[in-house]
């Protein structure tokens, strides 16, 4: 079961297959819970959010569209939206974008080669982010990692909406230039 692709596992989950559901939860629970915890800042709220996110993935698995990104991106988008809704009800978010990227990588169920590959990729991302001006770095982490909208980034950073959009877009353009160009050159 562990060799099954994320997409196949999700398809199995969508049809109600028990083995697929168990494998899907085992594969993604750390990511989902981890993101929920960093956004909510509360262990119990994070557990509720993570459970609801996995249930929604089960209910709406057939809605996943690979053209818009990977399964993990789709699942984390669901998680982010739920977590952000949760903190909107309870309290304002107190997230430091710098802290998010500084957190260590949990090894979970991964094999050594997968851990090494992911660590390498994250190191490249951190290096590329380090080249960006701090305001662009914060904007793209808030939007890309924590799932804030451009309007929420603007409110959080105390800048006009247009400025927030420009920061996010410019950061993405530079990250693409740094990461994709570098990747193709390797």
């Amino acid at each position, binding site marked *: 079961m562990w060799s099954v692709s994320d997409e196949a596992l999700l*398809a*199995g989950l*969508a*049809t*109600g*297959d*028990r083995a697929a*559901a*168990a494998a899907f*939860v*085992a594969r993604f*629970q*750390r*990511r989902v*819970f*981890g*993101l929920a915890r*960093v956004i909510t800042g509360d262990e119990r709220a994070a*557990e509720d959010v*993570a*459970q609801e996110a*996995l*249930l929604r993935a*089960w*209910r*709406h698995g*057939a*809605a996943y*569209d690979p*053209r*818009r*990104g*990977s399964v*993990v*991106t789709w699942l*984390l988008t669901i998680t982010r939206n739920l977590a952000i809704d949760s903190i909107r009800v309870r309290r304002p978010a107190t997230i430091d974008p710098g802290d*998010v990227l500084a957190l260590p*990588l*949990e090894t*979970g169920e991964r094999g050594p080669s997968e851990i090494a590959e992911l660590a390498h*990729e*994250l190191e490249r*991302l*951190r290096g590329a982010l380090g080249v960006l001006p701090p305001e662009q770095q914060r904007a*793209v*982490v808030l*939007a*890309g*990692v*924590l*799932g804030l*909208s*451009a309007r929420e980034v603007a409110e959080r950073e105390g800048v006009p909406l247009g400025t927030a*959009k420009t920061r996010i*877009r410019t950061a*993405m*353009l530079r*990250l*693409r230039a740094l*990461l994709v160009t570098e990747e193709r050159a390797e």
Partner: protein
Amino acid sequence: MIAGTCEMARERIPELALGLLDGAERAEVLLHVHGCARCQTVLDDFNGVADLLALSAPEAEPPPGFDRRVLSAMRSARRVDRQRFRRRALAIGAVAAAAAILSVAVVRIVDAGRAGDEASSPMLRTAPMIGGGGLTVGRVVASSSTPASVVVTVDYALPDGEYGLRVQTATGSVARGVGTITVSGGGGTWKGAVAIPSTVPTVLMMVDASGNPVCEARLAPA
């Protein structure tokens, strides 16, 4: 003809990759990208960056027993769904029985609580839902495990509204209605206890209020 301009698409692709565009803007860019190989490559690049950002989100071990609680919640929700399906299947079954007197039955709706006609080993078939102009507008997943089920999802390029779902096999002359899917905000999902024959090609189509097909998925025999 390609919808929109490359300039319009390139301006918005970074936000599309981050999931920051609303439904109308997203649809506009995706329509262009669908017909423009160069912009598709650019979108693939930005999706890669967005994926990497998502992967940088911190992981953490959930509390003990978390996975069991999630799986238990899924089982509970499934039981509720089955009760709903059973009620719907009985209602649809009554209509189907009446209709069968007048026409040849194409698809048998299976009571969600009983085994279907298919082999007992779970089997999964999927096919893209293809709409006008060859656009992929969604997906169909058919499972012949017990109970047999079909999931239909559309999330692209279809106007909001209600659409009928019809199934037709290569051996049947009449397309049989199996349900109604609601498209709202550009997307919709339908799940039903429908047994799709595994031995013959089967088409599942969505039809508009006038009964005209708007998209279809072709499920090949297993």
